[in-house]
């Protein structure tokens, strides 16, 4: 039950994009194209889950025993970047079709603040390994939800009669802000 609560809180109530305002650069950059957005979302789910697991392990097996918890920023970045690089090499050789469909997003999301943010937050909430897994899947699903919703809205906005000075990013930011307001309605749900 607690695991579901963790997932739901990460997915909807504390949505990483619309409530915590992380990973906005890729959010605005990639959401112009629906197909690209979907590919990006799959990459994010995959990478975030993997990197949260590895970061959690690095924190509790490397940093805590030596009492160097303050190194977590540097160590997490090192670990996550190397992991994603390794993943890219592996995919390119072993599963070329998968590489062609989602591999191009891997360098883009290596340094995405949401990836690092999810790892940090999982440590801050003092989750165990299983809880970290549910948490990171929840965060990345929340990212996917917000991203795909926004991509469809932007697709409609392309043919809408928007005033000249609002076209492009201004109206995109205003729309995202309105989406964020609506997601605020979820806070306090189930006492989470």
């Amino acid at each position, binding site marked *: 039950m607690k695991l579901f609560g963790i997932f739901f809180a990460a997915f909807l109530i504390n949505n990483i994009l619309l409530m915590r305002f992380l990973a906005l650069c890729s959010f605005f950059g990639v959401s112009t194209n629906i197909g690209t957005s979907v590919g990006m979302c799959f990459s994010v789910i995959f990478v975030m889950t993997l990197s949260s697991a590895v970061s959690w392990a690095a924190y509790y097996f*490397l*940093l805590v025993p*030596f*009492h*160097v918890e303050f*190194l977590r920023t*540097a*160590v997490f970045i*090192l*670990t996550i970047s*190397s992991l994603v*690089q*390794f993943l890219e*090499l*592996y995919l*390119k*050789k*072993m599963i070329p079709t998968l590489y062609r469909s989602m591999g191009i997003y891997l360098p883009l999301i290596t340094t995405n603040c949401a990836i690092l943010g999810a790892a940090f937050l999982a440590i801050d909430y003092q989750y165990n390994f299983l809880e970290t897994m549910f948490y990171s899947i929840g965060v990345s699903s929340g990212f996917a939800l917000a991203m795909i919703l926004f991509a469809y809205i932007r697709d409609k906005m392309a*043919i809408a009669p928007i005033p000249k000075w609002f076209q492009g990013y201004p109206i995109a930011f205003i729309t995202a802000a309105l989406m964020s307001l609506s997601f605020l309605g979820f806070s306090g749900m189930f006492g989470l």
Partner: protein
Amino acid sequence: MLILISVIMLGALGFLFAGLLGLAADYFRVEEDPRIASVLAVLPGANCGACGMAGCRDYAEKVVLGQAAATACSACGAKGAAIISEIMGVGCGEVERKVAVVHCGAKGEQRKKKGNYSGVKTCMAVTLVDGGGLACTYGCLGYGDCLAICPFGAIEMREGLAFIDPEKCTGCGKCVSACPRKIISLRPYDFKVAIACSSRDSGAVVRKICPVGCIGCKLCVKQVADVFKVTDNLASIDYAKTGIACGPAVEKCPTKCIVTSD
């Protein structure tokens, strides 16, 4: 002490990961046929999809694997096809250069309207509402779907009519599929004559609507019978009949709807 541990830990991790990645890069190296790179260099890189593959990279890979013809890319021209054939070591057949042409000639004041249109300004959207207020139900709508899709910038709008520059056009065919009225077609580059009308309305109706439309009078057929043909009140050219002078037909056409490009 703490500083020492931090430095050692970060340094060790750094070296460890760098070493692992170096080994991985070697182990997972993907050998690529160098011919792919040389074919890619010849291709225009516009990813227009005219060859039927998913972009230039895909086509280059398939050519080297022998799964695609060396002449499939119309955008790189006869010269490019010859170079690709040479890279692949196969003989190259004759590649005929084709360019697109819009079969409509009404510009500016000639484009008679029967109503006002206010809505989404794309040709595709306008066709859904009965031609957007233009009197001719066959002609160019002028909102530039073809212009938007051309990867080579060969199309421009002149007084509300789409015009394709035969020098810039590579014959990829994207505009042909983009036009919702289907009035763009490919003609051989060397055959520089085309009928600038697509109206199948009878002559009397066309006279009321458009000063430069084809009225199906068959004067062109009388002049140059082999090349010109009139079906459904519309003249057409048989582009297979090369080497015949079409000048007389161009001069005799009463509405000047047969155009040449020099």
